[in-house]
């Protein structure tokens, strides 16, 4: 589904990401872990073209992704969330999702025409019901709680109906009840045939949902294995406890 080869990026003298290669299978949830500063988010930015790659290639569904601008990837089916939540506070929840849906209105002329809102609204209500946020439809996104905003950002990614979804710490700062909703949502996506790559520090949560785990340390690939094996692997423990 997604093949990365020799990915590397240097800031000044620092190798944020060095010869990082891995592959994730379709319809799998793959976790990406590593101590702080291992370069996980930088890797995300490099894969999704938010940051220009120094070296390395990215293959998505066997097709080489050129260094084009980030927005084009969404149309190809790759969508992501961010470490700090990036939703549109001044827009309503409905508008936040509408934006993600109408990506086929990209040529400017018919983006003036009004899309068939009620067809979209059904789908939005459906999505919101999954995370019981439906009563916030017309609420300004800025007024949502932290947890609710996190959910909204994930829903927005789902709304782009991308096949490959990259989540950057979806569970961070989310209370337990909300966490179960996030878990249900992620697993639901997998059933719908989506492929997910998830950066997360909440180990029990991640291990529970992942089919495979990739471990990164100071920009380099450490190992890629089943969750149980990775937990017991001495190299991983040493990386976390500070080698």
């Amino acid at each position: 589904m997604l093949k990365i080869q020799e990915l590397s990026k240097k800031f000044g003298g620092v190798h944020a990401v060095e010869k990082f290669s891995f592959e994730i299978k379709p319809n799998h949830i793959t976790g990406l872990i590593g101590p702080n500063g291992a370069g996980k988010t930088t890797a995300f930015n490099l894969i999704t073209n938010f940051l220009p790659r120094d070296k390395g290639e990215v293959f998505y569904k066997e097709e080489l992704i050129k260094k084009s601008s980030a927005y084009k990837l969404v149309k190809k089916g790759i969508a992501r969330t961010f470490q700090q939540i990036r939703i549109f506070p001044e827009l309503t929840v409905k508008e936040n999702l509408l934006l993600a849906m109408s990506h086929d209105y990209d040529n400017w002329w018919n983006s003036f025409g009004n899309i068939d809102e009620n067809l979209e609204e059904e789908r939005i209500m459906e999505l919101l019901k999954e995370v019981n946020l439906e009563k916030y439809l017309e609420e300004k996104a800025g007024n949502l709680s932290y947890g609710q905003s996190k959910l909204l950002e994930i829903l927005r990614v789902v709304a782009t109906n991308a096949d490959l979804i990259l989540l950057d710490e979806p569970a961070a700062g989310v209370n337990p009840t909300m966490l179960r909703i996030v878990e249900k949502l992620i697993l639901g996506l997998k059933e719908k045939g989506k492929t997910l790559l998830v950066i997360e520090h909440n180990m029990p949560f991640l291990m529970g949902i992942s089919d495979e785990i990739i471990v990164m340390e100071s920009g380099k690939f450490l190992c890629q294995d089943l969750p149980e094996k990775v937990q017991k692997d001495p190299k991983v423990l040493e990386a976390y406890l500070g080698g």
Partner: protein
Amino acid sequence: MSELVAQLIWNGLVTGALIALVALGLTLIYGIAGFIQFAHGEIVALGAYNFMVFHKLMGWEIIPAVGISVLIMIIIGLILERFFFRPVREKDPMIPLVISIGLSIGLQAIILIFFGPNILTISDKTHASISIFGDKILATPSQIIAIISAVILMIGLGVFLKKSKIGKYLRAVASNREVAQVFGMNIDNSMKWIFGIGAGMAALAGIFLGFEQNLEPLMGVHISVKAFSAVILGAVGSIRGAIIGAFLIGLTESLLVGMGVIPSGFTSAIPFVILIGMLLLRPEGLFGNRFESLRR
């Protein structure tokens, strides 16, 4: 020919020095407070007018008159920070920017009401120029003092920021204000420092500008607009960048027009042609880094 070039370079250095004095204040404020202070030009103008009042009207000697004018402007700089910029410091940086635009037109109106629209000169004595560097260059005493003091202040500021305790403190605040706050650093008095230093240098620039040209309510606008370009040219927040940007503008303007490359009618467009041209090549400025866009 070489005499012409030498004189042009000297003219460029003088203009560059004045722009640098203004740009340094702007860079400090932008680096730490996060917005371009549009009313900085009016502080330059008020500095010149203050000096004129003390020196020409009240007959003080030059040195005390400079001292008092710079002091008054530092106080005004602190007042502006305390009452106009502190209340909105945590808000989106566009708000203090628009407030500074409002302050700019307000202060211009106040200068107009107090000092009238007519053009005033800073002192009646016209100083004959003396030739220096083996009489290749003609310079007035005020120009020479302007360059010397500008260089001293630049080095002084550099040393102050690097070596002194407060300097390190300011640089820490500049790098990340939230983190600094977490460590209990007192943001308020670092703001006092930068607005005070910025206003003081701007007042000095105003006084030297007064010697170069006449005093008019809009004198501040013309030089601060060039200083904005210098600040951005050098990559905002970098002292070294602002100084080099200022001298780049001063010298280019002087040499391009002086050598007849550009018709003199286009002189006041040169700083911006350089700025926009440069922003296309290196959007993050001469010394900045590419990360600007991703930061929150």
